[in-house]
């Protein structure tokens, strides 16, 4: 991440960075991405014990003797790996924005 600029001993004006419009936009974008995805994967995950405890939908056979509960579980594994890589792609673009924010701060705002 962009931290080479933060040399030891140099006082960083965090307020100046926090007040940059670009920073506010980044935080808003990042948090809404992180939390909406978290709600989605937690919901998908918690639905499993709810369905298995209170219904028998997933007890039915899907392929041969394999019941839907295994298919749903496999789906959760695939979801986990998939969301990992989606996260990385998103985080890389957030990194670029964070770098730009620090550059903006060093070029003007702060000092």
């Amino acid at each position: 991440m962009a931290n080479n600029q933060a040399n030891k001993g140099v006082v960083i004006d965090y307020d100046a960075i926090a007040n940059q419009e670009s920073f506010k936009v980044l935080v808003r974008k990042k948090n809404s991405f992180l939390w909406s995805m978290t709600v989605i994967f937690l919901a998908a995950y918690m639905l499993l014990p709810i369905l298995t405890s209170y219904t028998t939908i997933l007890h039915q056979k899907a392929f041969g003797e394999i019941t839907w509960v295994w298919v749903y579980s496999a789906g959760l594994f695939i979801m986990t790996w998939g969301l990992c890589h989606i996260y990385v792609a998103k985080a890389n673009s957030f990194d670029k924005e964070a770098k730009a924010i620090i550059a903006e701060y060093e070029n003007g705002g702060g000092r």
Partner: protein
Amino acid sequence: MTNGMSFTAIFFFVAIVGLTLVITWWASKRTSSASDFYTAGGGLTGWQNGLAIAGDYLSAASFLGIAGAVALFGFDGFFFSIGYLVAYLVVLYIVAEPLRNLGKFTLADMITARFDSSKVRGTAALSTITIVLFYMIAQLVGAGALIQLLLGIDYWIAVLIVGVMMTTYVLFGGMTATSWVQIIKACLLMLGTVIISFLVLKEFGFSITTMFKEMETATDSGAAYLNPGLKYQNGIDTISMLIALVLGTAGLPHILMRFFTVKDAKTARSSVIWATWIVGIFYILTIFLGFGAAKFVGKEEIIAANAAGNMAAPLLAEALGGDILFSFVCAVAFATILAVVAGLVLSGASALSHDIYGQIIKKGNVTEKEQVLAARIGSITIAIISILLALGAQTLNVAFLVSLAFCIAGSANLPVIIYTIYWKRFNTAGAVTAMLTGLISALVLVAVSPNIWNPVEGKAIFVGNPLINLTNPAIISVPLGFLGGFIGTLLSKESDAKKYREVEVKANTGISVQDVSH
């Protein structure tokens, strides 16, 4: 099963002990500062730390416990695999990067990056030590029972052997030795699991559908074996347990600590990806371990060896691969235990020596040399306490202790982590109340649960009716942790918006990460 030691078993055990001691010796020459000791100097790469996370996480409870649970209870055992894996998304999305950007050695460092108070630090250290001890007793009791069974030696000698080994790694090699022991263990564990799974699949003609078809008649449960409900019939309790699994991981001190061993948030991120792939593949393979054990070893024999099913995987290895594979898998289980307990000692020591001694008692006025000495004394202290507790806890159920540790981690640590990073109004009082409410409610609710109380004598520790009918109270205690932090915050007028802006900037940009660490 062979009783006593065969030559191959001795060979594999000695090889693992020898290899890990060589690593420790090599690491000891690279361990001079406190940062070396606690975080391997922050110099691990993404794949190294990813493997180490997997090695730290896949405990004997995973390897032996889940294989046994799937063997005995079919799908219900697999719930653990799902929960333990999806948990990594919580770690990745919510915790990993801000933690790396804000912390130094411990969870308390990260929280006190915002609230510079010894009350906050002390409470965080207390919750860390509590979780570490519960988790460690579970691992040591499991290790003792396993080695006793494998080598035919007394329980207390087995616990002492593991105790001495883990202390040696940490004492001399710090985080560098611990990390490499974990990396090697992760590789060995994956190798062992893949070999057994391959042999199981081969028996089923490499067909998943054949495997399921045969499993329908392989156990006395019939087709019900392939569906949920064999073990978990109380819906709320099942949901509660799954909450503990998915939220607990992101609060486990020895896992959180691993994020300080890399240089920046980007590396922390890539290590989670590595860990998630490895851990995920492992958990998929637990199906083969469990099904294979149920089919080729049989329920009676598994239960005869160990009532909780912990011997399912080693017995399966013996059934399909003979003495050599059996010995190898037992040695892998031994390495698994060593790697996990070493990580636990280190995180317990960091709370004791860095947080309580270095930062609270000495107020940060400690030289590098004193810090390292304190870390070593702390490691020995944690090791001795947990060995003594484990010697007295032989009869406790291991799976219960592990799920309790997850429950406390999710209830006491996760709320405070989330509030610290994401809630502007959060304050010192809230941080303390969040941790205490989570910690105390988890402990109290377990103390009145069916794990402790059962009307039938011998089924639990005390005879009597439990006050709540939940074996895992996460569904109550996690919300209580959040609620405690919320109310505590509102009751105190204190609010430092300027400090929060600083935390927000650091967490989101990684700026100053080099000032706060290394």
